[in-house]
């Protein structure tokens, strides 16, 4: 069964994991695997599973489980393992604060305020959705304007439909998936609008969420005004030029009572900031070593807290690594320090982790700035990999093996993704 809360917490833990989503669950398993005995997951919801529980569509697990699962199925598999391995789970519980000595202050309605101490902490709080304020859409402030992920929770878990006729702003995966969900639940989706000249979501979602239901996708077009006093009545949309300036002479109105915003996610790092962890301005998540340890000893981070992933399978993989290293830290068996810094170069927005060690294999995740057809990834001068095509919406990952670095004695490697020389 999916819920099995722990009644009494221990005063001391080897590893405390903040967040019981896919990252938190994999991290807890990783910590256990490395010999951490007492592991606690804290989650503010009434059950573990995180956002996967509202992602009822298939497409999860192809990498990790080699089969296609829905979000709830993927979550349930991990949770069953977590419960088998006797990880403590505190649901309906908030983490208020973590201090420098890794004392974690918790609050729940059942148990009140409690403090547990941890040898290592894993931060796995996930991300938040960007809201209307982030893009400063002009107009009135009626009800009916909400983020796509919130609408997803309303529709898929709480049983509320947001309206009757919807417009979706942003072609991120959540927006595309919600276009289909609303259609299947009987709403009319008037269109998906994307300010960029290319779609932000995965191609498969454009096919199976939009094309299948004849939902139009308008690229280089955005919502320029929101109308309505109590309830949303219509939105004005307009095409934009290369500088994203709307051409109001070509604007048009769309009557609708619902506007879903799918305009990106921001790593949730309130606790990380309280701890003064160093933050990467591009990912907006903590800077991490190859062990997924943050700039503070014994504080590990994983999942969307670090950078926004497009596949949960990669979250699980990264979180397992973070958890294993948290377990190693708690049992004092840490691996050697990193000795090479990765620097994002041409057409690379960021690399995670930020540093690597030449003595072992790493998976480095990165995101490109611009789409390219045939391209090549250069890891300094030590290694190159041909890529078929790259998009900002699809993370690029690279296995860096120790043999690439045999001849390398520097301390920084620049990573470029450039067109193949023709």
């Amino acid at each position, binding site marked *: 069964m999916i*819920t099995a809360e722990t009644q009494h917490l221990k005063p001391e833990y080897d590893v405390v994991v903040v967040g019981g989503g896919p990252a938190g669950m994999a991290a807890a398993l990783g910590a256990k695997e490395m010999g951490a005995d007492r592991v606690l997951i804290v989650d503010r919801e*009434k059950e573990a599973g995180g956002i996967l529980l509202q992602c*009822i569509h298939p497409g999860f697990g192809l990498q990790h489980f080699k089969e296609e699962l829905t979000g709830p199925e993927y979550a349930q598999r991990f949770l069953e393992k977590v419960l088998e391995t006797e990880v403590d789970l505190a649901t*309906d519980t908030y983490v208020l604060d973590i201090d420098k000595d890794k004392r974690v202050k918790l609050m729940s309605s059942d148990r009140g305020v409690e403090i547990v101490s941890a040898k290592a902490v894993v931060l796995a709080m996930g991300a938040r959705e960007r809201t209307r304020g982030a893009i400063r859409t002009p107009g009135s402030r009626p009800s009916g304007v909400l983020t796509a992920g919130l609408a997803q929770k309303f*529709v898929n878990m709480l049983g509320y439909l947001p309206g009757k006729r919807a417009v979706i702003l942003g072609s991120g995966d959540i927006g595309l998936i919600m276009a289909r969900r609303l259609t*299947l639940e009987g709403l009319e989706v008037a269109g998906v609008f994307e300010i960029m000249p290319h779609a932000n979501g*995965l191609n*498969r979602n454009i096919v199976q969420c939009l094309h299948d239901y004849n939902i139009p996708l308008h690229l280089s077009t955005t919502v320029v005004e929101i109308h309505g006093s109590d309830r949303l009545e219509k939105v004005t949309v307009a095409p934009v030029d290369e500088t994203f300036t709307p051409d109001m002479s070509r604007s048009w109105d769309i009557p609708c009572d619902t506007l879903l915003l799918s305009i990106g996610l921001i790593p949730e790092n309130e606790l990380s900031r309280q701890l003064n962890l160093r933050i990467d301005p591009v990912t907006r998540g903590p800077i991490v070593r190859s062990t997924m340890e943050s700039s503070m000893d014994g504080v590990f981070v994983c999942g969307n807290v670090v950078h926004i992933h497009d596949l949960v399978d990669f979250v699980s993989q990264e979180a397992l690594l973070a958890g294993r290293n948290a377990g190693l830290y708690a049992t004092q068996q840490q691996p050697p320090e990193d000795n090479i810094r990765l620097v994002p170069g041409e057409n690379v927005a960021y690399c995670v982790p930020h540093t690597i060690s030449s003595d072992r294999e790493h998976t480095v995740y990165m995101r490109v700035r611009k789409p390219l057809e045939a391209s090549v990834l250069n890891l300094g001068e030590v290694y190159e990999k041909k890529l078929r095509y790259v998009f900002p919406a699809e993370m690029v990952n690279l296995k860096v093996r120790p043999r690439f670095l045999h001849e390398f004695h520097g301390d920084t490697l620049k990573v470029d993704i450039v067109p193949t020389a023709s």
Partner: protein
Amino acid sequence: MTTQTHESTASEISNYLCIGCPMGCRLEVEENEAKEIVEVRGFSCRRGEQYAKQEHTEPQRMVTTTVAINNGLWARLPVRTTAAIPKDKTIELCQKLRSLRLQAPIDRGDIVLPNVFDTGVDVVASRSMKTADETTSSRNG
């Protein structure tokens, strides 16, 4: 999907985007004059090749949606088809499921609607769901 015709060869090439996994391979199906598939290109796995043929002849989709559930931890239970069904039946299936109301508790894999449209495909629960009371009592007990 875009379809381009090459008059010179009298064969027709249809382009599809694979939805089998997030890689999104660009697929090409080539047909001869007799409307037989002569070649499939662009896939990186066997599933992609099968998808291209299926999509070209009779497109199918897995369907995931939710069903109302009484006294559950949440108000909706996520459900899925056990296999893909004809694409044009998707909306009709969701309409059918909207008239159902289930009772918690339920286990993952429990059949919610058997043998939809005589396809042999069932709609099943994609998660277990306890009753809201059960969860509360376990927490207090």
